[in-house]
Every structure is written in C-alpha cells, then in structure tokens.
C-alpha cells in the first residue's frame, strides 16, 4: 500500500457546528455510497445520538476519492465524540489521525469546544485545516469568523474553504484541501507491528471488534498479536477496513492504514482504547504514548423502579459494559430503594446516556440517585478511603480530614453575561483565575471549581443564565482539602439513605433548606402530614411539612357521563404507580435525582 495515497483525518467542531453533516457530504462526494443508501447522518447510528445531535461512540469510514490530479486517494475519516466527558476517547481518535478538519459555524464563531478540540489536535501534532460552515445562512459572518480563527487560534484562515455542508456548497474544495494540505502517513512497514486501538465494538456473534490505526509493520489473518498494556494475546481471525456502515475484510493492514481486527476476543477489558497492538513474537520497542485507564469521575446509585427487575438491570449493565469500557458498576443495597448498583461514569453526559440507554434499549424503569464524586477521606488511623456513596462515610470522629476533586473550568460567554455567570461560579465555590477577551464581545472565564458543584445542574444553570450563549468545558486537576460533611434527609422521621449527600460544610444549612423545599414540591400530599427534615449528624437543620390531603372537589357525574370520572381516577392511579414507597410515604421516582436541582431561574 502506497502511503502517499492515504489521508487519515478527523473532523473536529463544537456541538452543532456541522461536523456530522460535513462527514455525510464527504462520504457522498467520494461516492462509495449511493444517495439512496445514505441515512440522514451516516455516522450517528444510535437513536440517542441523533436526538441529542452529538456523536458519542467514535466510528470511522473509509472512502475512495478521485482527486482533480486524476489519482485515487484513500480517505479514512475517523469520527470523534463531541463532548467533554469523552475527552479521552477524542484524544485516542486524534492520535490515530495525521490531520484534522476544523469546522467552525460562520454564525457562531469559535466556541469553548472549538478551542478545546484544537488544543487537543495540536497536542497530537495534527495538521489542521479550518473550514467555515453554514455560509448559506443569512446570519453568516464568514469574514469575521475567519479573522477570529486567525486571532484566537492562530491558524491561517482567510483562504480556507467557505462551505455549506447542508447544501454541499464548496465541499469539493474541502476534499482537494484534504489531499493537498493534510499530510500522508509515514510509518515503516518493515518494522514490527505497532498499532493504536482507538475504539472497539462488541458484537455478540463476532466478539470484540478492535478499531485501530497501524503505524508500523502489518497484521493479517493468523498473526499472533499482543496488547501491550493489558498483556492479553490473540490469534487474528480477520482484518479489514470500514465501508460505510459495514466491515469489509482485507488480506492485510499495513503501516498507514486504518481498519479493524477480530480475534475471538470475548472480553472488552482486554482491548482497551489507547492500548498498543504489537506482534507477539517481535514486539515493537515502545508502546504508543498516551494510554490511560478510563477513570470514572461521577458516581450514582441506579435502582430498578420495580424491585423484582434487579436481575434484568444487572444483565443490562453487563451488556452495556461490553460496549462501554468506561462504565463501571458494583452491587449496592439501599434501605430505601432495595437492591441496585453504584455506577461510575466519565461525567454527567455519560451518566445520562447510560441511564437513557438502560431505559430505552432494555425497557427498564429506573430510580437514579443524586450523583456524587469520589471523596478522599483521611482517617485518624492513617488510612485513606475513597468514598463514592455518602452512606459509606465513616463517623466524623474517625475522620482526620477530607479532600474533594477539583476541575479547571473554561466558560466561553458573550460579555453581556459575564456578570451572571461569575455570580453562578461564585455560588458554586468557584475560584476565579482569569478572564481572557477573545474579541470585544466574547471572553473565556477560567475558574477552578469543586467537581461536586458542577455535577448536579451547573450546565442547565449556565445555559439559563446566559440564555444559551455560554459554553463550557472542564478538566480534572487534582484533589484539595475541604471542609465537608454529610447531610441526611429524613422523610416522616426516617433517614432516607438514598437522599444523603456530602456537602461543603458552611453550605450545609442552605443546601438542607433547599433540599427540604424541593422535596416538599416533589412529594404529593398524602393521607397524613409528612415532615421532611435535613440533618447533620443528629442535629436537624431544616424542616418542611407536606400537609395532608384534606379535600377533593366532588365532580358532578353529569348526564351519566361515567367515562370522564373514570379518566380522573385512572390519572390518580397512574400517578401512584410512579411512586416508590419509603416507609409509609410515597415518593415520586424522579425526586431522588431532582432533589439537588438548585437553580430555580
């Protein structure tokens, strides 16, 4: 394979700037797919992704482009996930590329994730080709955006393609630029095999399908390979390339190529994203850099709404994990909710995606408890505990001190909303670092913030206080000592373990009051008064009462119209089904998650 005819690249963009649409157009124009075969967005094949308009699971496509110079080029378009939670996956996908097409929306300009992605791409020494998209829209400002790309990012952009991925305008120019401006791979086909796993997929018939980029050497059916980080070794049963939506077997994958391999691999844990595949007998000198174990940052309890479905939940999590190595779970028991699992996620979006997939693809009805981060507890006996479930916090007398995880947060915002956003960050214990003006109307605010302040509803609050104009990115930056305490919630005088959470001690009173008020709204009135209390240790710090139900209005069964009466009763009964009984109190399932929604604006 002549490496000079290969281009391995990805498309990077802020959410909604048109990454998937451009990918569709490239696939269309390179012709391997007829229009009829085109799904609306070829790369986003999970329903969920389409609904959210983002790509979660990296996928890749190989197409053939006949360039204006008359030569045929192989394009490996490697898709990258578009969210901060999946930063590590993005970084592995980028590492598989030699260049990147940077899409910037000509109506929006440079956004937080545009910058984040560009920096990541530069970290991997990728050549970057800027493209200005959506120039067909009336509000497009291509000149301003080109200037912004030059000023803010420092990339030459005045001559870059100005396109409409939607209509196909000037997409040809993008294809030619990929050929002429992005570099070809330059590995050594005669060295021992060295390939990077950038994604994998579990198929119940074929086992794990490993997506990889070959840097040096080659691999074919029958090769005996080894995963350098996990140590697992396999005999390859098939190698191939990515057609649009299907796998096409090939004789061999050699240096510079992107493709897949299968080796009857049953366990996804043995083929971690970021690992290096090499030859078992002739190992390469050095693994490719950058491998990391996936690190969950956010934890929460997931319980079946109906207790008997616990085994179904376990099966579903097992199956999901086959496809999502970053998902972690272990069984736990709650007095309030029964048997369930404590699950670890990369971030809030990951949590959201997993719970929604459990509900949709496995038809489960779930109760999700408020998310928690990992706290480090230094005990007086010198040991250190990692706590992901507030219930497991030891007695305060055994605690020497505690630490909580911090993140570096970058918030890009139009200047008129700087005030409200700064207020929000201060409310969430943010430590201000700097404001960088990108231009007169836009700035990046940089804060250090405790992760536990952003995992509940920070994103929603940010959007509502900026009318949707703020964008946000964060990165873990270590643990700091903090004054933390556990807040318990008592419903009808009983502690509900699933509602306990760890809070910055000076905020305990305020949080306790907010939670009680929130629960008062969530819990419907019942046959008796229900006291709701917040407590730190044995001290009650806040209280609300859900007053008992006193009187229903008596509707007239007019003219013998009974069906109307029945509907009313059915509605009443439906509402009751959505409740979980805690002691003798009926609590709506959503309450366990909603209780921490603090921002009422």
């Amino acid at each position, binding site marked *: 394979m002549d490496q000079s005819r290969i281009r391995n690249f990805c498309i990077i963009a802020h959410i909604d700037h048109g990454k998937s649409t451009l990918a569709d157009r490239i696939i269309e124009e390179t012709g391997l797919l007829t229009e009829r075969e085109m799904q609306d967005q070829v790369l986003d094949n999970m329903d969920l992704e389409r609904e959210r308009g983002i790509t979660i699971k990296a996928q890749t496509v190989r197409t053939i482009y006949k360039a204006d110079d008359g030569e045929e080029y192989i394009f490996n378009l490697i898709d990258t996930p578009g969210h901060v939670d999946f930063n590590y996956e993005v970084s592995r996908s980028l590492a598989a590329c030699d260049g990147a097409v940077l899409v910037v929306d000509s109506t929006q300009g440079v956004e937080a994730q545009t910058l984040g992605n560009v920096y990541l791409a530069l970290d991997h020494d990728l050549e970057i080709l800027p493209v200005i998209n959506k120039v067909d829209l009336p509000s497009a400002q291509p000149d301003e955006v080109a200037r912004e790309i030059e000023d803010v990012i420092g990339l030459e952009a005045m001559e870059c393609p100005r396109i409409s991925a939607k209509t196909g305008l000037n997409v040809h120019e993008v294809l030619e630029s990929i050929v002429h401006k992005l570099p070809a791979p330059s590995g050594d086909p005669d060295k021992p095999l060295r390939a990077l796993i950038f994604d994998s997929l579990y198929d119940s018939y074929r086992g794990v399908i490993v997506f990889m980029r070959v840097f040096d050497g080659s691999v074919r059916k029958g090769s005996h390979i080894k995963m350098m980080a996990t140590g697992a070794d396999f005999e390859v049963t098939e190698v191939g390339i990515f057609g649009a939506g299907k796998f096409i077997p090939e004789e061999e994958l050699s240096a510079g190529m992107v493709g897949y391999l299968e080796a009857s691999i049953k366990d996804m844990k043995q083929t971690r994203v970021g690992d290096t595949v090499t030859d078992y007998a002739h190992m390469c000198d050095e693994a490719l850099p950058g491998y990391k174990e996936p690190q969950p940052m956010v934890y929460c309890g997931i319980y079946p709404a109906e207790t008997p479905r616990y085994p179904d939940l376990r099966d579903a999590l097992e199956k999901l994990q086959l496809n999502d190595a970053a998902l972690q779970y272990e069984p736990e028991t709650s007095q309030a909710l029964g048997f369930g699992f404590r699950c670890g996620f990369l971030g809030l979006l990951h949590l959201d995606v997993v719970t929604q997939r459990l509900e949709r693809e496995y038809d489960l009805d779930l109760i999700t408890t408020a998310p928690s981060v990992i706290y480090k507890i230094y005990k007086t006996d010198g040991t250190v505990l990692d706590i992901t479930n507030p219930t497991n916090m030891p007695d305060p007398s055994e605690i020497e001190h505690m630490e909580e995880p911090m993140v570096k947060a970058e918030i890009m915002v139009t200047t008129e909303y700087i005030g409200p956003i700064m207020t929000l960050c201060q409310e969430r214990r943010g430590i201000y670092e700097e404001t960088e003006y990108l231009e007169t109307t836009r700035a990046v605010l940089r804060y250090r913030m405790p992760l536990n302040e952003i995992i509940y509803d920070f994103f929603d609050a940010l959007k509502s206080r900026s009318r949707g104009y703020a964008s946000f990115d964060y990165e873990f930056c270590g643990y700091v000592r903090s004054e933390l305490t556990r807040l318990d919630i008592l419903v009808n005088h009983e502690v509900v373990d699933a509602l306990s959470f760890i809070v910055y001690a000076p905020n305990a009173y305020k949080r306790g009051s907010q939670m009680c008020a929130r629960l008062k709204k969530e819990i419907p009135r019942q*046959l008796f008064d229900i006291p709701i209390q917040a407590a730190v240790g044995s001290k009650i710090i806040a209280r609300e009462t859900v007053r008992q139900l006193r009187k229903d209005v008596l509707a007239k069964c007019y003219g*013998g119209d009974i*069906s109307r009466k029945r509907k009313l009763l059915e509605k009443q009964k439906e509402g009751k089904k959505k409740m979980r009984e805690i002691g003798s109190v009926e609590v709506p399932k959503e309450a366990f998650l909603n209780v921490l929604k603090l921002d009422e604006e």
Partner: protein
Amino acid sequence: MGEIGLYLHIPFCVRKCAYCDFLSFPAGEEMKKIYASALIREIRGYRNAAEDSKVTSIFLGGGTPSLMPVRQLRAVFQAIYDTFPVDKDAEITMEMNPGTVNEALMSFVFDSVNRVSLGMQSAVDEELVTLGRIHTFEDVRKSVELLRESGVKNLNLDLMSGIPGQTEASWARTLSAAVSLGPEHISAYSLIVEEGTPFFRMKEEGSLVLPDEETERRMYTMTRDVLARSGYAQYEFSNYAREGFRCRHNIRYWKRGDYLGFGVGAASLFRGSRWSNTRDVDEYIRLSPDPGALVRGMERLNKRAEIEEYMFLGLRMTEGVSSAAFREAFGVEIRDLYGDVIDRQIRSGLMDEPKEGTFRLTDRGIDISNVVLAEYLLD
C-alpha cells in the same frame, strides 16, 4: 321486562356561565326547531331497540331545557311515548334555570313532568353575578312559588359551593334560604374550574380567588349537618333528600342501571355497553336520521370494567356496597378482589363496615374520594 331511564340533552342556554364546560350554547328559535326535529328523529330510531324495556325515569337536562318552546317539548315527549313503554309512575324530571321559568311553561310542566330541578346555585346575588348566572335569588323564590302553584310536588334545588368570594357565612345563608323554600331534594356540588372556561383563564392569571381547601371541607361538613337537621338525609356524595324523594334517575347512574341518552353529546349505558353521541351539534343534526352514526366511543364493558364501575360508583352512595349484592352481580366475593384495599382503607379510617358485609366511605373517605376510589381500579 327490564327497566330503563332516558336522558334528553337540550344544549341551549341564554348565555354561558363563567364556570360552565357542559355542552351548551345560546341559540335562536330556528336552531331550537331544527334541534328538536333531530332529537325526535333520534328517539324514533330506537323504535325496535327497547320495546321490551319499561321506562321508569326520564331526565331533561342541559343547557337549559326550559328554553325549549313548549310546542317542541310536547313533540319530543310525543316521540318518547310513541317509541317506549313509559311506566305510569315514572319519575320525569326537567331542569330549569330560574331566569327562564314562566307561565307559558307551566301547562307542559303540569301534564308532562313530575319533578323539577331548579338551578338556584346561591342565595347571594353577588355570587350569582360572579358565576355569570342570569337570575337573582328573588327569581328563584318566584319560580318556586309558580312551580308549586302549578302542582309540582317534587322539587330539587341545585346549590354550588366553592364559588369565588364565597365564605362559610354566605354558604350558611344559601343553605338556610334553600331550606326555607321547602324543596324535597337538594343537590350541592362544588365548583370545579374546568379548562376552557373563563374561570380557568382567570385562575391561570391569578385573578380568581377561590375558598381554600379547609374552608371547602368545612362547607361540606356544614352542608351535611344543616341539611340533616332540616330533614334532608344525605344519600350520595352531593345529594340530599327528604324521605321518599331520592332521585331515581341519578341513582340509576350510580347503580349502573340501563339508560339511553338522546341529543348531542348524551351518554348511554345499555346492555353492557357505554357510548356517547357526537359532541358536534351540526354533525348531530345531520346524522340524526341514523342514530347508529351518532355513536362515539362505543365500549363493550368487560367484567373487570363493570366491577370497577360498580365499586367507584356504588361507593358514592352513603349506603355503600354490600358483599351479598356484589356476589349476586358478579359471582365472586368482594373480598377476593378487594380484601387488601378494604382492610387498608378501614385501618386508615377511610371506610367502615356498619354491618357485616356492607362497606361505605367514612366522612374522611368522602373528603378525599379521588384517592380512595382510584384504588378500586384493578391492575
């Protein structure tokens, strides 16, 4: 021979009240004539359907049936008597708005009707204005006088609690004024703010001040006490009567007897099926020659639905439901289906068992009847 009740819907009114979401609207003379002809066609269409059923109650409801000209009322009744065997002791009720009662109507009342239901609502004129009623309390008093002179021996007054601005004191005035007019029967409903009404919009805007829940509850208790002292025993959530004057037609609804509804939007329960007529009056008039084409939402009730209805309707009656009658109706024991619910409700003070095998709601059970009755829907 089975017994059956007939309901006739007359959708006209002088003007729509601010709380009303019933199927009613102001209409001109021509419209009334056309509607009466449609009604007659529909009734006659049932010629062969119910010849073996004896009609023991007829109810003219609305709207305001007293707005229908006498000549047309007579024609409608002629159609009924031509089509159905009407029992000579049948209870025949006509609803009237006190603002529409007049001499001309009395001859019809005298020879065709034996029970009149008068929409009094309140004795406080300001409250009547709030509701958008077209009459005063004085109109009510005069109407009662006229009806009595015309020989009406069975009179109901409809009252309404929960009116915006109403207080316990004003409700007490309404109750004693109603009692002083000496009706045989009193119905007292609470105002429900229904979607699509002017009250609903006002409530959304926050300009409607309704009595709070506690006040409503005390008004309800007061109703029961005041009326009991004056000789009106409660027999259903909202209905009170002197001995021998319970409304047979309404009891039919709660005990699931057969009834046929005629007119736009009218509901029927007949031989195990429920249905309603179209709610579109133009369509009703157009399709009336073919009564089958008027039917909307025809539902053949299965045993489960019948049992559920039996409970949530039967428990509206203060006499409650008895396990013997339940067994006779369905061939199963009430406790086999509802033992857990009944025991739990008795424990919670929502239900009692005044004599063995009879279950009825307590005052507290009636207060929160939606919660209590919903538990009789089976899974």
